[in-house]
Structure formats: C-alpha cells, structure tokens
C-alpha cells in the first residue's frame, strides 16, 4: 500500500516534469542504443510511455550490435560525419568525456541543473561531467564486486576476506580441504582487452595508487603499481588463479564460477541474477562482498561500468531529445530496469531501497553499499587511448613476459609520448 502511494507520488512529480517541453510537438526522435540482453527488454515500454506523455513525438528505437568496440566505431564514424540521423544515444560511460571533447554531444547543462545528478551514485554521476558541464545522464551501472561461495566459506568457518592475502590463504585452505582438482581459487578477467584494465585498476586502487592522478601524472606511485601487478602475476604463478585467466573475459569467468568451479570471482552485479537462476548449480550458495585490499590501500573500491544517455549535437529536436533522456534517467525510467527479468542495475540510489525492486532482485540492498564506494575509471577524453596502450603491457606482466617494472616502464613511456602529442 505504501509502495503504491510512493509510486503515485513519483508519477505525479514526473508528470509535472514531463509536461514542460511544449515545442517538442511533432518530432520523430531516433534513439540508438545497445541491444539489451536478457529475457526482458525494458526499452520499448518506456518509449511508448514517453510518446503517450508527449503527444506528437514519436521515438524510433534502433539497436546497435552488442560488442562495445562496434558501437564505439559506429558512433565515431557517424558523429564525426556530423550526422543528424539519430538524436539520442546510449553510450558506455567511458566515452562521455571523449565524445564531449570532440564536440559531438549536446551540452545538457542548460536543461539539467547539477542537482539533478545528486540522486545518482557519485561514481556514475562523475562520469557525466566533463569540463564542468553535464554531457549525459546515467542510465544503468555496474560495479566490480567479489563473489564467493558462501557454502564453502561457512564449511571452513571463514568470513569473506578483507585483504587479498586473506583471500589467497582462504582459497588455498579450501582447495586443500576439498581435494577437488577442478576447483579453482579466484577467477577474474585477464584477457588483453578493456576488462583487463578494469581489473588492474582495481588492484591499483586497492593498493592506494592509480593509473593517472588529478594533475595528469602518469603512474604517480610506480612502486605501489608494480606491487599490485606482481600480486596479480603471483595469483597465476602460484595456481590460486588458473592460467586460463590470461584469456578469460567476463562471460568465461562467470560461467566457470557458475558451474561451481571456483571459490571466488571478481565480476559485475549482472552475474548474481544468473547465479540465482532456477537451473544454476550454485543457486543459493553465492555471497557478494567488497573487493579486498592490498597493504597500502583500502578495500571495496570497485570500478564502475554502465551506460549513459546523451544527445547528438546535430539533433534537429533538441527539446524533445533532452526530454527523452531525462525521462529515461528519471526514477520512473530507471524503475523499469529493476523489473524481474532485466539484468541491469539502476544508477539511482533510492531504487536500491525500493520494495518492488528488492522483490525482483533480493540482493539489491547489498549492491547499494558496494556501488556507493565505486570509482569511475579515469574520466578523461583520452581514456580509450590510454587503455588500449596499456593493455598489451599489463598482459605481458601477467603472462610473465615482462617484469611488472618493465611493463609499467614501457607503458609510461608510451603514455607520456601520447600525452605530449595532445597537450
């Protein structure tokens, strides 16, 4: 009953917001977005609702291919060509500063007061702002978390590890006790791709350092960074992580853990929905915890991922396009992605305490605390350049072709050369 009243209140408040753009009449908006995987796609329903509230506006939704690289390529080619062929776009949050700097996005600041970002998790909101202007609104979010086999930990009287050294100890103890050669210690993403950079960044943060600091210094504390990389290499060399992590991405590692083949897994919240699926071998046996820490840093600093919504600067229907972005990012727009069957997590803090959402995803309150401490990857227009440059170097350190110091030295040389070209 109370939930219904809240919903009604939210609807009334929203109706007030949505009525404003009067001149939005008689426009057809094109909305480009990533294909939503999973049993339920919330987008068509949201768009019909938006059309109902904005008579005269129709929205055509055009899904893009699912891989991130292809989406980026599509946007780059079309936006650089100044196309007005789409108005609203869904984009990976790491592209927001890049596209903004390139002049491809409409500055949303005149429509979106800074306070409108406040209800979102800080790490998601931070990715919307570049050069003190708002370029996009957060729509869904991911945060790096540690999954553990609650049944196994309980069997050995253990609690989720606070530090990575604890984790190694626990993994070794459980594997020794279980005597199952097919049970691995900890799985993560070590293939040479963006996911590897995310994993390394989290180890950097856990050891109190970063890839680039506020003053744009590259690898400000090389010793801490090297220690973090050395630890990751040791996970593989000591067998706590199987050698296959150097080729594994999110899905590969998620499937192994989901088959009950590992004690720990570093992944995103979406994995929980799959672990709790009716036919999952680990259903009811998985717990989620903050990422552990290294000696010089703190625990629980997971990287954020997710999609933001932005407006093409060449749009012919700015008012209507902005209205659509605000509607999708609103409490109601995001409530739709908390429905059962959607494996996406909203960026609005309140929804993690929403009884209806919690009913569909019982572990949402748990993710709330983890998302609150999340950190964005470096919010810089050149982030992608950075990432693709360091990927082979980090990968070389993991497979043992270079020492961590050599890999970091080579990475620094290339990054500094790159920065000198654009400064």
């Amino acid at each position, binding site marked *: 009953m109370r939930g219904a009243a809240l919903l009604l209140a939210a609807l009334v408040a929203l109706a007030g917001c949505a009525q404003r753009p009067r001149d939005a009449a008689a426009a057809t908006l094109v909305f480009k977005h990533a294909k939503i995987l999973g049993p339920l796609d919330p987008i068509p329903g949201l768009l019909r609702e938006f059309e109902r509230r904005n008579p005269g506006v129709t929205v055509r939704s055009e899904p893009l291919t699912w891989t991130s690289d292809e989406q980026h390529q599509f946007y780059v080619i079309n936006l650089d060509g100044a196309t007005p062929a789409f108005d609203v776009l869904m984009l990976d949050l790491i592209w927001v500063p890049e596209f903004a700097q390139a002049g491809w996005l409409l500055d949303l600041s005149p429509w979106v007061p800074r306070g409108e970002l406040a209800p979102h998790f800080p790490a998601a909101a931070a990715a919307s702002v570049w050069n003190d202007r708002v370029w996009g609104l957060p729509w869904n979010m991911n945060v790096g978390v540690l999954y553990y086999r609650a049944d196994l930990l309980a069997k050995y009287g253990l609690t989720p590890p606070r530090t990575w050294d604890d984790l190694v100890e626990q993994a070794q103890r459980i594997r020794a006790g279980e005597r199952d050669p097919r049970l691995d210690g900890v799985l993560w993403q070590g293939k040479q791709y963006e996911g590897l950079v995310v994993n390394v960044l989290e180890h950097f943060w856990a050891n109190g350092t970063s890839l680039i600091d506020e003053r744009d210094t590259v690898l400000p504390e090389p010793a801490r960074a090297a220690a973090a990389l050395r630890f990751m290499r040791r996970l593989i060399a000591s067998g706590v992580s199987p050698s296959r992590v*150097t080729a594994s991405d999110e899905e590969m590692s998620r499937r192994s853990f989901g088959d009950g083949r590992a004690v720990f897994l570093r992944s995103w919240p979406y994995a929980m929905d799959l672990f709790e699926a009716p036919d999952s071998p680990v259903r009811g046996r998985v717990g989620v915890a903050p990422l552990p820490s290294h000696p010089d840093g703190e625990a629980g600093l997971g990287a954020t991922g997710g999609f933001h919504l932005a407006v093409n600067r060449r749009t012919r229907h700015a008012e209507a396009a902005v209205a659509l972005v605000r509607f999708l990012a609103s409490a109601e727009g995001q409530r739709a992605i908390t429905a059962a069957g959607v494996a996406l997590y909203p960026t609005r803090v309140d929804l993690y305490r929403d009884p209806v959402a919690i009913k569909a995803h019982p572990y949402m309150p748990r993710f709330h605390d983890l998302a609150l401490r999340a950190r964005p990857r470096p919010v810089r227009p050149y982030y992608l350049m950075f990432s693709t440059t360091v990927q082979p170097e980090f990968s070389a350190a993991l497979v043992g072709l270079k020492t961590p110091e050599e890999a970091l030295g080579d990475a620094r040389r290339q990054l500094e050369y790159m920065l000198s070209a654009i400064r």
Partner: protein
Amino acid sequence: MTARQRADRLTGLAFVSPALLALTVLTVYPGLWVLWLSLQQRIPIFGIARFAGVEHYAFLAGDPRFWTALRVTLGFTIISVGLELGLGLAVALALQRQRLGRRLALSLLLLTWALPSVVTAKLFQWLYEPSAGLVNVVLGGSEINWLGDPDLALPALIFADVWRTMPFVALLCYARLLTIPPEVYEAARVDGAGRAATLRWVTLPLLRSILLIALLFRTLDALRAFDLMFVLTGGGPAGMTETLTVYAYRSLFQTLQLGFGAAIGCVIFALVMLVAWAYLRALRPEGAAA
C-alpha cells in the same frame, strides 16, 4: 600512327574509361587521401590537425609494438598460407581418387569455407576453452591455455585459419584437376611413369598456375588478417597475436589517431603491393607461354 590507328585507340580509351573512372573514384582517390592523412597529425577529439611530415613513420621505425605486429603478421602469413597450400593440395588429390562420398566431402569443405569468419572465431573460442573445450577434452583433459599462453596463442590462431581456408585451396585445385584430360595420364602411364613421377612431372606442373593464384589470394588475405585475432585474443596475450591490421584498427577507430592509423594502413598497403607485384611477376612467364 595512322588515322585509323588513332581512331581505334580513342575508341579503346572510351571503352575503358568507365572502368578507369570507377577505379579512380573508388580506389585511387581514397588511397591518395589515406597517404595524405598519414602525413598529418589528426586527432579530431582534441581538434588537432597539423602537417606532420614523416613523423608517424619515424615513430613506427622505433615502435616495438609495430615491429611485433609486423613479425606476427609475417609469421602468421607464411605459416598459415604454407599449410593451407600443402593441405589443400593433398585434399584435392585425395578427392580426385575418392569414389565414395565425394559429394559429401565437397559439401563439407564448402560449408567450412562458407561460414562467416566471425562465426568461425566464436566456434574456436568454444573449442579452445581451456576447461571444457573440445580440443582439450580430445587431448586427454589437460587444461592447456590455448589463447592465453604467449607461445600457444598464435599457433592456435593459425590452426583456426588453416581449418577455415584450406577448403578454398582444395576446391580450386580440385576444379583444375577435373579439367586435366585423362589422355595425359594415359600417356604418362604408357611412358612408364609411376605414381610419384606422374605427380611430379604431370599433375604439379599443370596445377602450377592455379596454385600461384591461390597463393596470391591467400597471402593477400593473410597479410590483412583481422577477425580471428580480434575476436579470439584481442591481439593478446602481451600483443603476441596483434597483426598490423589490428594495430591499425585500434589506432583508427578506438583511439582515433587518424594520421597515425593511416600511416600503419599505408605500411600494410605497401607490404601487400610488394607481395602482389612479386607474385604477378612469377605468374607472368607461364601466362605468356600459354
């Protein structure tokens, strides 16, 4: 030159002009534009657009990533094309002798070749999966880390490429074998040639030009190899499977360094042209005699 000859030449020019025009618009112009682009520093997101001369080429000369990519590209090309030709030829000869199930064998070969390369790549992602993939199961259940080991990743990709494109060579050779009149073999037999001698002195010489054409096609494709490594390894681990095309793609479309990416593209183009020229020269004498 007589008036007649001149008129003929003009008519000839008129006839080839649409083709020339199409080539100019579709190939020469973009090609020159890419060359021009490679001489600039162009990074649109930072509004950087200035002439850079041979700066990018100078950087590439001292860029370890570029040299690794070049080594990977050449190694991949030489080994995979060599295997494809050898195996393709063997399969074609086997098909020629095969009586039973030849149609089935042919359709299976075609099927492999007809799969889109991204599908092939996904297929091999499953086959190579270390813990449950078919390859390791067949090899006795050991957890070989095919795509994550710096020494195994490139051989694993080469195997996938050979599996995918060997049928192309096999079918080409088989088609040529069908056109060899049986009298030739009869004559060889009458002259007392054994199996080995027939193969060495009759079949192989007759296959020479088709093999060279297959070699040309396959080499040019392999030099531009992209999808297998892009899907299976992303160029890793440690850049050990990153080809020049993957490096160019990353620079152009992921990091948007247009001038720099264009410079890598020009290097690939030069490499491909060099190889094509060498092969065409090798093809010419026989072509002239025939």
